[in-house]
């Protein structure tokens, strides 16, 4: 009987051969992350543990991204504590404006194919785009990793998802995940790992693949792992990652479910207000009015998202009454977008650009994005009532292409119907 990628990575890190789904293993963790929204708890747990030394602390990055910049004194003081901790232990730190944890970890070369990575955040599944097992944990877990370098895991069952065919221009990985959410429901993959494979994945650029792994968190997935290919290896090399140890699933690996999505014919999708699994095809809801357009977050605040938005808004203006905010996912993306002239295009069109970080993702960052009865279209990952501070507003979720096309027209719009909507990332 063969093994999945999750079984192989966890088994190998537990010092043996592949593990079996359902088993509990104690595995060596390659890298860990604590972000500012959970640092208060994590630092408390480290203190409670009372370890004489923290031999693995240098493999834990501290990231100041949620409260970026801090919206209150408490958050500012958490940042002070985090900086002091990083200084004391000489651990990597990403300060305000450096970017979102899930973007800066891969960009910083902290992980590679075959690694086991944990972070105090549900979207730690993002690292699966690089053929790593990435998963979300809590402060107690990270304190254990700092002290012992190890953590316990229940080896998850895996769902195999084959993406058949390259996405059309104007259609993105976001639309694939929204399709999956429509099929399985939010948390429909609870406890399980996902493996995305097929020609649809092969055709995707790394930015888009990161969306696939990141957004799996909304499906409740514990990890969402892709096989490595030339693009993965080139990206990792360019970012200074350690030598990759790519892991493939066996042909006779056991999956709980096999799903095939015809990605070649997929239309753009949106999640309607309040429920991330209330999915509609964009052509079916085109014409729904919007007042706020947001591009950013760890799901879709990457360079290709900003490029796509700029391609649509080049030489044009936002529709009257529409407000648009663009928040790059990291400083590196911010710099690249600036150098490419994308911010000039977006600013001239009427959008505002914010410093890199979690920005407009959730109200804890200090943002109150929308007034009563306003409709937001966002490239973020969650849209429950009140996520942006005002329970009387609505949040719809779509790709950066859908967000930009909608900002241009003032109504939810299929990017394939507007000029520039066919921009394609160089694969």
């Amino acid at each position, binding site marked *: 009987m063969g093994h999945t990628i999750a079984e192989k990575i966890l088994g190998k890190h537990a010092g043996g051969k592949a593990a079996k789904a359902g*088993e*509990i293993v104690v595995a060596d963790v390659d890298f860990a992350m604590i972000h500012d929204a959970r640092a208060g708890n994590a630092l408390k747990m480290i203190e409670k*543990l009372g*370890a004489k030394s923290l031999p693995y602390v240098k493999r834990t990055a501290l990231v100041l991204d949620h409260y970026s910049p801090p919206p209150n004194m408490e958050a500012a003081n958490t940042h002070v504590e985090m900086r002091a901790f990083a200084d004391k232990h000489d651990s990597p730190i990403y300060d305000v404006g450096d970017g979102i944890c899930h973007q800066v970890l891969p960009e910083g070369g902290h992980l590679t194919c075959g690694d086991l990575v944990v972070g105090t955040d549900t979207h730690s599944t993002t690292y699966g785009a690089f053929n790593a097992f990435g998963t979300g944990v*809590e402060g*107690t877990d990270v304190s254990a990793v700092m002290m012992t370098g190890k953590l316990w895991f229940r080896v998850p069952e895996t769902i195999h998802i084959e993406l058949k065919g390259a996405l059309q221009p104007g259609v993105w990985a976001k639309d694939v995940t929204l399709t999956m959410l429509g099929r399985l429901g939010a*948390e429909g993959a*609870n406890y399980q790992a996902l493996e995305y494979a097929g020609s649809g994945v092969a055709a995707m650029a790394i930015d888009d693949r990161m969306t696939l792994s990141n957004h799996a968190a909304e499906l409740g997935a514990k990890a969402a792992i892709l096989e490595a290919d030339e693009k993965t290896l080139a990206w990792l090399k360019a970012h200074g990652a350690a030598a990759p140890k790519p892991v493939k699933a066996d042909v006779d690996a056991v999956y709980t479910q096999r799903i095939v999505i015809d990605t070649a014919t997929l239309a753009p999708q949106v999640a309607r207000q309040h429920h991330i699994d209330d999915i509609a095809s964009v052509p079916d809801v085109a014409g729904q009015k919007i007042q706020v357009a947001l591009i950013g977050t760890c799901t879709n605040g990457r360079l290709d998202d900003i490029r796509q938005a700029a391609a649509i808004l080049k030489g044009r203006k936002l529709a009257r009454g529409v407000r648009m905010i663009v928040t790059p996912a990291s400083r590196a993306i911010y710099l690249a977008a600036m150098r490419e002239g994308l911010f000039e295009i977006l600013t001239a069109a009427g959008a505002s650009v914010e410093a890199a970080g979690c920005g407009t993702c959730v109200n804890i960052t200090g943002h109150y994005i929308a007034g009563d009865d306003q409709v937001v279209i966002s490239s973020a990952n969650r849209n429950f009532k009140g996520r942006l501070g005002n329970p009387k507003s609505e949040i719809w979720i779509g790709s950066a292409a859908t967000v930009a096309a909608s900002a241009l027209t003032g109504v939810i719009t299929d990017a394939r119907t507007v000029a520039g909507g066919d921009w394609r990332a160089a694969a």
Partner: protein
Amino acid sequence: MNIIKGGARVLGDDVSTDIHCSSKYLPGKNTEQIAAVAYEQLVPGFAQGFVKGDLIVAGRNFGINSSREQAVHIMHRMGVAAIVAPSFGRQFFRNAINNGLTVIECDTAGISAGDVIEIDPSSGRVTVAARGITRTVPPLPAAVQALLAAGGLIPFLQQHPDWNLKELAA
């Protein structure tokens, strides 16, 4: 592990512990204040009527979307002895074990508030004698039992910095 026996306090499906039992959406509130109003919007008077040693009996996906282990700390303060539900949110399940709160995945149909419920984590047996209910689920893995018996991951590591889960559970 010891048998746990207590009164059932019932909650429904898809309970988000972040919303109803943590500071995530009750900013500025401390553990004690939240423990006093936990699940109030779902079952008025839930926390007031909670007796130390009661068990929470819930529907599917208990603790969904809940990433914060603080929710478990609040449940300890309330005196929750264990939680029985057909399924749990992934992160909540992990946080419960890491913080020494027993969680059992078992069908809870037919169990009502106030029923005396008995669980045996080692054999996976859940009993409500007065209703003639006996259900058996796979026992908790030995490693999880070891963590729970120690009172959670931190006390476990304080005693066993070498992570010897296997020997301990045997």
